[in-house]
C-alpha cells in the first residue's frame, strides 16, 4: 500500500490543494450553524432587524464561499485522481510489457488484465476518497466538541458517551455481517460457475439427460444464496432503525438537558435566553458529526478490498523481468547473417533458482498452493494437480543438453510428442526464456550478450496460437514490418497461401479483423500470422507448430513457396506431422527434453527408434494406400 501511495508524489501539489479546499469547505459548513445561532440569539429573539440582515448576509456570503471551496476541491481532487490513475495504469502496463513470457504465463492474461483495470480503479478510488474525507472529519469533531463545551458540560458528556456507543454498534454489526457478505460472494461465484458450466457444456448436459440434475444443483445454490442474503440484509435492516431511534432518543435527551441547564438555580437570564439558539446549533452539529463518522466507517469498510488490490498491483510493480538487456551489448559481425547455434543447452522451469528477483512470483505460487491446500473442501478445491505437476517439472530439465547449428538457407525441423519441449526449445532463441545451462549463439554472439531489440530484429516468429490483433489485415501483417508497402504485403500474403481468401474479401487487405481474429477460421489466422512473419524479412524464421490448422496440401504448398521466396532465411519449424518435416535439412527428434535423434528423414528412419514409431503411427496407412 505504501508503495502505491508513494506514487501520489508527483501530484502532491494538486492533492494538497484539494485537501486544503476540502478542509476549508468543512470549516465553512461548520460556521453556518454558528451564524444560525447568532441570527436567532442576536437578531430574531431581541427583534433586531439589522442584525438579522447582517448575519443573513454573512451566511449567504459563507454559502457562496463554501460552494466555491467545494467546487475547487472537486476540481483539484478530480485532477489528482485522474492523473494518479493514469500514472498507475501507465506504470503497470509498461511493467507488464517488459515482463518475460514466462511471468506472463504464470500470472495469466486475465489476471493481468484485472490488475491493470479493476485493481487500479479499486485502489485509487479508495485512496482518494479517504484522503478527501478524512481531513474534514477531525475538523467536524473538534468543532463539535468545542461547541458542546461552550454550551454545557453535560452535553460534552453526552457526546463522549453517545458517539463511541453508536460507533461500537456499527462496528459490531459490521464484524458480524461482513463474513456473511463474503460467503454470499462465494455462493454467487458458485452459482455463476454452475451456470457457466451448463452453458458451455450444453450439448453434453442435454445428451446425458442431465438437465434436471443441473437444475437441482442450481436450485440448491440459489436457495442457499437467497437465505444467506435474507439474513444479512435483515440484520442490516434492523441496524438502520436501531441507530435512528438511538439517535433521536439522544436528541430528546439533549433537549431535556438544555432545558434543565437553563432552569438551574442561579443561571444568568441572558445565558438562559441563548438556550434555544445553542441547542439548535448543537443539534445541527450532532448530526454533522454522525454523518462524518458514517463516512469514515464506509471508507474503513472499503479499505481491506483496496489493500488486496494494492498487493496485487505491487506484485507487478515489484516484478523485475529476469530477461534484461545486457549491460555491455555486443553487436554481431555484419557478415554473419542468420546462424543459430545451440551449445549444450539445458533449460528447466525453476522458480527457486531465480532468487530474489523472482521471489514475488515464488511467493505467489506458494500462496496459491497453500490456499488450495487450505480449502480441502471438495467444492472449492482448485486443481491441486497443478502444483504437483509443476513440482515434477522443476525436478528435471525441460530441455537437456541439446546442440546443433542451423545455417541460412537451411530448414531445421523439431518433432516429438506434446510436452516434450519443442516449443520451449524454439522459445529460447528469441529469449522468451533464458537457458539454464549452455549457450545459444545467434550470428556468433550469445543471445544474452545482444541487445534484445537487435536480437529480435533478426527473428520472425509464428506462435503456436496464431494470434491476430484488432484492426485491418494490412495492419496485422505490417505488424512485422511497419514500413512495408502494399505490394510487399500482398507478396507476403501470396507466399503464405492466403491470397485466395484475402482477395475474395470485399475490402482486401483493408478488411477488418475483429478481436483476436474471431472472424477468420483457424487456418486463415495461421496463414495471416505466417504472412506477418514473412513480411518482416528476417534472417531467422521460427514456426512454432504453425501449420497444424492447414490441410496437408496447403501445408506442402506453403513450405515450398517459403523456401522459394526466402532462399537465404534460416527456417526453424516445430511440427507434429511427419509430412511437414519430411524435406527438412535437419530433423531434431525430441523426447522428454532430450534430442534422441538429429538427421534427415532418411537417416533417422534408419537410426532413430522414436522417429520410426512416430512415422509409423502417421504414415502406415497412407503408405499402404499408395
Amino acid at each position, binding site marked *: 500500500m505504501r508503495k502505491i501511495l508513494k506514487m501520489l508524489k508527483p501530484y502532491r501539489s494538486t492533492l494538497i490543494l484539494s485537501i486544503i479546499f476540502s478542509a476549508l469547505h468543512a470549516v465553512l459548513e461548520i460556521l453556518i450553524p454558528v451564524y444560525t445561532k447568532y441570527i436567532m440569539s442576536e437578531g*430574531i429573539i431581541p427583534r433586531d432587524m439589522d442584525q438579522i440582515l447582517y448575519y*443573513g448576509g454573512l451566511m449567504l456570503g459563507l454559502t457562496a464561499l463554501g460552494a466555491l471551496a467545494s467546487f475547487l476541491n472537486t476540481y483539484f481532487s*478530480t485532477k489528482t485522481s485522474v492523473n494518479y490513475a493514469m500514472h498507475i495504469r501507465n506504470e503497470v502496463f509498461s511493467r507488464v510489457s517488459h515482463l518475460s513470457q514466462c511471468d506472463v504465463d504464470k500470472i495469466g492474461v486475465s489476471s493481468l488484465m484485472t490488475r491493470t483495470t479493476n485493481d487500479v480503479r479499486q485502489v485509487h478510488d479508495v485512496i482518494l476518497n479517504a484522503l478527501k474525507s478524512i481531513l474534514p472529519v477531525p475538523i467536524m469533531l473538534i468543532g463539535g466538541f468545542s461547541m458542546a463545551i461552550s454550551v454545557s458540560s453535560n452535553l460534552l458528556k453526552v457526546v463522549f458517551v453517545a458517539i463511541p456507543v453508536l460507533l461500537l454498534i456499527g462496528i459490531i454489526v459490521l464484524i458480524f455481517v461482513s463474513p456473511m457478505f463474503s460467503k454470499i460472494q462465494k455462493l454467487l461465484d458458485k452459482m455463476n460457475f454452475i451456470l457457466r458450466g451448463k452453458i458451455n457444456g450444453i450439448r453434453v448436459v442435454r445428451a446425458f439427460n442431465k438437465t434436471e440434475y443441473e*437444475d437441482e444443483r442450481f436450485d440448491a445454490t440459489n436457495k442457499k444464496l437467497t437465505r444467506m442474503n435474507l439474513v444479512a440484509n435483515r440484520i442490516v435492516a434492523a441496524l438502520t432503525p436501531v441507530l435512528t431511534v438511538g439517535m433521536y432518543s439522544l436528541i430528546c435527551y439533549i433537549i431535556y438537558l438544555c432545558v434543565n441547564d437553563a432552569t438551574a438555580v442561579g443561571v444568568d437570564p441572558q445565558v438562559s435566553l441563548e438556550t434555544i439558539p445553542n441547542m439548535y446549533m448543537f443539534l445541527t452539529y450532532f448530526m454533522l458529526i454522525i454523518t462524518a463518522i458514517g463516512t469514515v466507517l464506509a471508507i474503513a469498510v472499503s479499505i481491506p478490498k483496496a489493500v488486496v488490490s494494492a498487493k496485487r498491483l505491487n506484485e507487478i510493480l515489484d516484478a523485475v523481468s529476469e530477461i534484461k538487456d545486457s549491460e555491455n551489448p555486443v553487436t554481431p559481425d555484419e557478415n554473419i547473417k542468420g546462424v543459430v547455434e545451440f551449445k549444450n543447452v539445458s533449460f528447466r522451469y525453476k522458480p527457486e533458482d531465480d532468487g530474489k528477483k523472482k521471489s514475488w512470483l515464488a511467493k505467489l505460487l506458494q500462496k496459491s498452493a497453500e490456499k488450495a491446500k487450505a480449502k480441502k473442501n471438495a467444492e472449492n478445491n482448485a486443481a*491441486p*494437480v497443478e502444483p504437483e505437476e509443476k513440482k515434477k517439472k522443476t525436478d528435471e530439465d525441460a530441455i537437456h543438453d541439446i546442440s546443433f547449428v542451423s545455417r541460412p538457407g537451411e530448414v531445421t525441423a523439431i518433432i516429438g510428442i506434446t510436452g516434450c519441449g519443442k516449443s520451449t526449445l524454439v522459445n529460447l532463441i528469441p529469449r522468451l526464456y533464458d537457458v539454464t545451462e549452455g549457450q545459444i549463439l545467434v550470428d556468433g554472439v550469445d543471445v544474452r550478450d545482444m541487445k534484445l531489440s537487435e536480437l529480435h530484429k533478426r527473428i520472425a516468429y509464428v506462435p503456436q496460437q496464431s494470434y491476430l490483433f484488432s484492426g485491418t489485415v494490412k495492419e496485422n501483417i505490417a505488424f512485422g514490418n511497419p514500413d512495408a508497402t502494399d505490394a510487399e504485403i500482398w507478396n507476403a500474403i501470396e507466399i503464405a497461401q492466403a491470397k485466395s481468401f484475402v482477395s475474395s474479401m470485399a475490402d482486401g487487405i483493408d478488411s477488418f479483423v475483429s478481436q483476436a481474429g474471431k472472424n477468420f477460421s483457424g487456418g486463415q489466422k495461421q496463414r495471416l500470422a505466417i504472412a506477418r512473419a514473412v513480411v518482416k524479412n528476417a534472417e531467422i524464421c521460427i514456426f512454432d507448430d504453425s501449420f497444424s490448422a492447414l490441410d496437408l496440401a496447403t501445408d506442402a504448398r506453403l513450405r515450398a513457396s517459403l523456401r522459394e521466396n526466402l532462399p537465404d532465411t534460416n527456417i526453424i519449424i516445430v511440427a507434429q506431422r511427419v509430412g511437414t518435416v519430411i524435406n527438412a535439412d535437419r530433423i531434431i527428434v525430441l523426447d522428454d527434453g532430450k534430442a534422441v535423434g538429429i538427421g534427415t528423414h532418411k537417416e533417422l528412419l534408419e537410426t532413430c527408434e522414436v522417429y520410426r514409431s512416430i512415422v509409423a503411427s502417421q504414415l502406415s496407412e497412407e503408405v499402404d494406400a499408395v
Partner: protein
Amino acid sequence: MSKSVNVKKDRILDADETYLVSKYASYDTKKDSDAKVGNAKGTAVRFFSLLKPHWFAVIIVCLSSIGNTLVSVVAPDYMADIIDSVQHSIENYVYNGTPVNFGSFLDFDTILGQLFSLGALYGIMGIMSFIQQYVGAGISQKLVFNLRQQVNNKLSNLPLSYFDKNTKGEIISKVVNDIENVSANLQGSFLTVLTGVIQVIGSLYMMLNSGNIIMTLAAIFLVPFSGTIAYKVSKISKKWFSKYWGSMGAMNGHVEEMYSGHSLVKIFNHEEKSIDDFRVINRNIRKNSFVANMISGILNPILTMCKNINYVTVCIIGGCYYIGTWFNTGIAVSGALSLGKIEAFLSYSSMFSAPITSISKMINNIQSSLASAERVFELLDEEEQTPDNTENEPEELANGTVEFKNVSFRYKEDVPLIEDFSLKAEKGNIVAIVGPTGAGKTTIVNLLMRFYDIQSGQILLDGTDIMTMSRNALRENFGMVLQDTWLFKGTIKENICYGVDDATQEQIESAAKSANIHDYIMSLPKGYDTQLAEDGTNISQGQRQLITIARALLKDPKILILDEATSSVDTRTEVLIQQAMQELMKGRTSFVIAHRLSTIRNADNIIVMRKGTIVEQGTHKQLIDKDGFYAMLYNSQFTGGIPEDIE
C-alpha cells in the same frame, strides 16, 4: 526502466486517439448496460407485475414507508411546540422578571410531556422503518430468487439454436450481471422514490397547512431551479460518462490484445509502440473521466448553495414575521411566527429539497437496472423448444437401428442445407461423415440428438419416429464424445460417471481401463478423486478426450456419436484415443465425424459433405470407384493436389 518512462512522458504521442478508441469499440462492455431502455414503460410495468405474488408484503412496505415518512414530516411540528414552550417560559422569566425560583416559570411537566410524545413519534418511526426494511429485503430477495430460477429453467428449455446464435459470454452476462444489477438497485431505488415523493408532498402540505404562503415560498423557491439543474447536469454528465466507459473499453481491448499477444509484441519489437498506444488511450480516459467527474461534481456545490440560500431566506423572512414588520420599513406583517415555527420551516425547507438530489442521483441507477431487466425479459421471452411429444414413448432402450427418411433441414430459411436425405444404419453399423471444415458435419448429430428439429421427413429409431418420443427417452440411447471435450470442476470420478449416477468403482475403473486412461489416473496422487479445474484445464487435451470416452463407455449406449478431432493431440496420445474409440464402437451403431480419412475406410456407410450439403454417399470402395469428391479428398492427402476452393 523509470528512466525510459520519464523520457517518454515528454514525448508527443501522435497516434490517432479517435482511431484507437473506435478500433476497440467492440470491447466497450459498459455501453450496452448504459444503453437506453428500448421500452422503458413496458419493462417497468412488467417488472412491477413480478411483484404481484407478493402484493401483501408490497402493501405492508408501502404503508410502513408512507407511515415512516409521514411521521418524520410531522415531527418538526412537535419540535416546534417544544421549542416554543421552552422559549416562552424563558422569555417570561427574562422579561417579566421574577428573579428567584426560575423553575416555577417554566412549565417543566408540559415540556417533559412534549418530549415524551416526540420520543414516541421517533419510536414509531423506527418501528416503521424496521418493518419497511425487513419486509422489503424479503420481497426483493424472493423476487430475484424467482427471476434466477425462471432464467435457469428457461435456459434448460431453450433450443440449442439459441446457444449457437448467441455467444456464451453474452448469455452468461445476462444471467449473472443483469440479474445482479436488478437486485442491487431494486429495493433501494424503489424506496428512495416512494419516500422521496411522500416527503416532498408531506412537507409541502405541512408548510401550506400552517397557512403561511410567503414562508413556504421562501423555503422552496429555488427548488424548481435546482431540480432543473440537477436534471440537465446529470444528462450532460451521463454523456461524458458513456464516453468514459467507451475509452475504458478501448483500454481493455488494447490491454487484452497486448497481453495475449505478449510474445509477438516482444519479438516484433512492438513494445514501444504498444506502450505509446496505451498512453494515448490512457490520456483519453483521463480527459473523459475528468470532464465527466467535474460536471457531476459541480452539481453538489450548486445544490448545497441553493439549499443554503433557501435556508437563509427562511431565517430572514422568519425574522420579519417574528418581529412583526417587513425589515425596517415599519410595514406590519400579518400573522406572527414563533421561534419554533421558524425552526420547523427550516426543517421543511431541507426536507422538500433533499429528495430532489437523491432521486436525481438515483435516475441513472434506475435506468441501468431497467435496461438489465429488459435484457433478462428478452431472454425469458425467447421461443422455447417444442414441448415433448410422448405419443410413442418407448418402454425400454432401443436396439440401435437408425433411419433417416427423406429428411430436409435448414438453419436459415433461405439457405438449403440437407434436402431429402435418406440413410439407414442397421444395428452395429458404422456411419462416417466426412468433408472439409464447415461443411455441416455436426448437423447430422444435431438432428439425431434432436438438438435441432427437422423440417420435413422422419428420423426413425427402431422404427419409431423420434418426434413422437420425449427428448430424454431418445437421448437415453446415445453416447457422445465431442471434439469440444466438456469436463466440469469436480473429481475425475464424478466426471466419468456423469451419465450414470449409480456406477460402482469397478465399473468406473473398467471404463477408464478400456479408454486407456486408467494408468494415467492412477499416476496422480489422488487418483480418481483428483479435482479437475473448470473445463478440465489442468490436464491435457488428449487426457480430457480419453476421460470423455470413458464417460461414454460407462454409459454403455446402443448408439454412439464420435467427433474424432485430434488436431491438438500428439501422435502417441492419438494412438491411445484411436484404440479407445475402436473399443467403444464395438457392437454399437456409430456415427463418426471423421477428420482423417484413413481411419474410416471400413465404415459401412460414408456420407460426404461439402459446403453444407451431402454430395456423395456409399462405402469407401464405392466412393473411390466413383472417382468423385471423396476420391479427390482421399487422394489429396498424399499428393498435395487439393484445389484451393476447398474451404
